[in-house]
């Protein structure tokens, strides 16, 4: 990834103009503040006081690439998205340099190579403003305090179990299972879908399913693993919750 960034710098920033070290730090800080390439682009357009519907693409591309140079020091996965935008800008710039067919119709908005980018920027800008609104709302909301929790049986009864609690239980069961020496002659194949069906049919009969009990019914390690994945899948995709009635207690699967 780093090497591709280098290559990019080589291809598109052949000018010698380097940013002096003092400024570099300042820019680095600023780069960290951008939420993405579109954010940076909007900032540059505003800096240039340019019209978003008539972006001076050559100027903005140069400015953008100047920032990209410092990007190399940043998180690679972020830099990758910024590089995609650099390529897009250069592509648009080159398209705009192509001589226009004089016999063609006067240029319509659709023909403008900048059109797609402008649409993307306008769409993005709406969500950027929405993010700002959310920020203000949450700030106001943080100034509002509610009464503390009242200690009731109900409030104490359930502790939401996490995946890690579930893993601990699963490990216990595997250990217990290891102790029983058994001969596995025939491997019974249970698919994930079958296991999910099995859990569901059990759940429809009962209000809630104790996972320890359910896992104990299973015989092979393979079945256990399938069952474990089935539980995760079922919780992820359906209106089901894992509930632990007390700390270190048994975990139940329950319909919400």
């Amino acid at each position: 990834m780093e090497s591709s960034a280098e290559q990019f710098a080589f291809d598109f920033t052949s000018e010698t103009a380097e940013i002096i070290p003092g400024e570099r730090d300042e820019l680095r800080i600023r780069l960290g503040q951008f939420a993405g390439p579109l954010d940076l682009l909007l900032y540059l357009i505003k800096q240039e006081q340019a019209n978003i519907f008539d972006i001076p693409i050559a100027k903005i591309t140069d400015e953008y690439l100047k920032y990209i140079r410092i990007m190399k020091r940043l998180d690679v996965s972020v830099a990758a998205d910024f590089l995609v935008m650099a390529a897009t800008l250069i592509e648009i710039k080159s398209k705009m340099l192509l001589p226009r067919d004089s016999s063609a119709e006067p240029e319509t908005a659709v023909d403008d190579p900048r059109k797609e980018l402008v649409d993307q920027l306008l769409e993005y800008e709406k969500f950027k403003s929405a993010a700002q609104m959310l920020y203000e709302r949450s700030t106001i909301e943080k100034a509002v305090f509610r009464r503390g929790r009242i200690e009731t049986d109900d409030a104490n009864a359930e502790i939401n179990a996490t995946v890690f609690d579930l893993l601990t239980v699963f490990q216990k069961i595997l250990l217990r299972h290891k102790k029983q020496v058994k001969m596995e002659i025939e491997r019974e194949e249970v698919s994930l879908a079958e296991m999910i069906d099995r859990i569901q049919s059990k759940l429809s009969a009962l209000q809630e399913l104790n996972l320890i009990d359910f896992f104990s019914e299973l015989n092979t390690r393979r079945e256990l693993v399938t069952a474990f994945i089935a539980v995760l899948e079922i919780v992820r995709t359906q209106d089901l919750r894992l509930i632990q009635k007390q700390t270190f207690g048994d975990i139940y699967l329950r319909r919400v």
Partner: protein
Amino acid sequence: MTEKVTTESAKLTEIAEANRQCRTAAEIMAVAEALVFVSDEPISAKAISEIIGEDKETVLAALEALKREYDERQGGLQLREIAGGWQIATRTELHEDIRKYLKTRPSAKLSLAALETLAVIAYKQPVTVPEILEIRGVQSASAIRTLLEKRLIVTKGHKETVGRPMQYGTSKEFLIQFGLKDLSDLPSIEDFEDLINQ
């Protein structure tokens, strides 16, 4: 014997019915206020109506009247509608003194990336990761992870398309943390367009 029991229980129901009819508007307001007070989460008018056996409209009217009372009094508390329910909370302008007492600071803020991602999810839900990428122009994986950890978003099943990508939507916790009655309480996304064009 059986007949007698039946008539007696019928009589009791009748009395209960009569009592219910007798509850004055002030009494409904009082019990509604008490229930809002003890509830940990915002409590809905429907939940209150089921508990006290009054119809939802009556309860709603009582809550509205109660809210006006709170507002007129200009006291330390407010009654407000949030996340599909009602809640008693302190007034915004008192936060400095409350923080001094609680010795708390405003909790950690979301990053710009997380806020943007949350905005896209809030307005476009249910929405997939590639769809978020298209709008933001940047990978949002770590922002999504943060939002899931903070329980501001939830998974909304798979989209039935190539690769069956996971879809995300906002949670009830999102409504609570951002002080929203429901999703329609969000300003329309087109309003932001007007704001930008100004």
